[in-house]
């Protein structure tokens, strides 16, 4: 087998240009997914049965079907249903947000349940409203338990964001594929892409470990 990285060397900056694209999908989706997941989790631990059913049903749908299917459905089927065609970016962000919201809601629910129930009672006894209790009393205490899973979700999403290349988003993988097609060399550009993903994941993992250590000591 012949490997020739020199041939694709000039295209490396082009592939590197996919990093901000990949990261923006990841970061925006995790942030929005966290907010959406928190809302779902509030529904799940709340006392309004229809909201609870909705949140549980929603979660099972998004966890029970392939992310790729969700992405293609939202990108290709949306014009037919809502008469609006999402850009790659919109479809990607929307899908990843909806999907990570489902996963994160489970972790957030777990975090909320880990907070002593006396906290909720004390807050209720002061006449504080449910949304405020969640936001200011429960969630800040639950975040310790939630944070590690938030990082894991970011790592998963970072890797899964590569799916965006299927519908044409110019992320790391898509660019590597372009280079491959242009130079008739698959191995080298894909190795570069793989390496980039790996490095990004390692950075996140290390950051997470430091964070966890800090949380444990504080």
């Amino acid at each position, binding site marked *: 087998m012949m490997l020739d990285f020199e041939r694709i060397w000039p295209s490396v900056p082009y592939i590197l240009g996919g990093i901000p694209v990949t990261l923006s999908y990841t970061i925006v989706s995790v942030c929005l997914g966290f907010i959406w997941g928190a809302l779902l989790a509030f529904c799940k631990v709340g006392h309004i049965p229809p909201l609870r059913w909705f949140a549980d049903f929603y979660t099972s749908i998004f966890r029970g079907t392939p992310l790729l299917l969700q992405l293609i459905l939202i990108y290709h089927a949306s014009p037919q249903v809502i008469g609006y065609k999402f850009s790659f970016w919109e479809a990607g962000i929307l899908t990843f947000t909806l999907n990570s919201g489902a996963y994160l809601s489970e972790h957030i629910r777990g975090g909320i349940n880990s907070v*002593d129930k*006396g*906290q909720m*009672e*004390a*807050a*209720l*006894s*002061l*006449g*504080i*409203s449910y949304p*405020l209790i969640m936001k*200011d*009393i429960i969630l*800040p*205490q639950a975040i310790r338990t939630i944070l590690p899973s938030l990082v894991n979700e970011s790592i998963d999403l970072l890797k899964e964001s590569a799916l965006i290349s299927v519908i044409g988003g110019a992320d790391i993988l898509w660019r590597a594929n372009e280079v491959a097609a242009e130079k008739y060399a698959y191995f080298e550009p894909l190795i570069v892409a793989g390496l980039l993903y790996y490095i990004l994941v390692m950075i996140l993992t290390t950051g997470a470990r430091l964070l966890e250590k800090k949380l444990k000591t504080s």
Partner: protein
Amino acid sequence: MILLEDIHKSFGTHEVLKGISGGIVQGEVLAIIGPSGSGKSTLLRSINLLETPTSGKVFVDGVCITEGRVDIEKVRTKVGMVFQQFNLFPHMTTLENVIYAPIKVKKMSRKEAETLGKNLLNKVGLGEKLHTYPPHLSGGQKQRAAIARALAMEPEAILFDEPTSALDPEMVKEVLTVIKDLAHTGITMVIVTHEMGFAREVADRVWFLDEGLLVEDSTAKSFFEAPSTSRAQGFLEKVL
């Protein structure tokens, strides 16, 4: 001020409260005593609807809070509560614990709330601990802060559920002193307690609960001197 009408409460098939009626007058200090598991906490928590009675009515200031559409949050600002386990918010300083609800619920300005909070914390002897986080407070200090937090809402009534039961013996007194100072200042107090000496000293009236029934409702004096039921007699003989 508080009126209970035939309160029943079951957890599953287990009937914990079997029809309790009674009234509490504004400014009165009521002690609820009785054996473990008799339903004291459940009854107390029915007053601010932390527990929803299975049947029966609760009136606060003449308004029935167990029927129809009631702004329960509004009612709870009038009826404060102090818990056995303190339940301070651990991620907020003592002062923040005290002023959070006045600011967020009563829409008090931060400045006004801070003045109020500092005053209250001074009153309960925590003037030096305004910016301390609860994990760094002793049990007695935590409970005093929790009392200040409840008072910051300027409630008409305050419910205490065994406020000293989780404390080391040497800290019981400082908390009881704070509660005593509060008694007969106009605020209605309902105290579930196992501290008989304390109940005898501060309470105007005593409710003796046994197996989910209000067995005896009498003045503190007559209850401790001459309980009228044999169950109360038996209980007092055991604990005194």
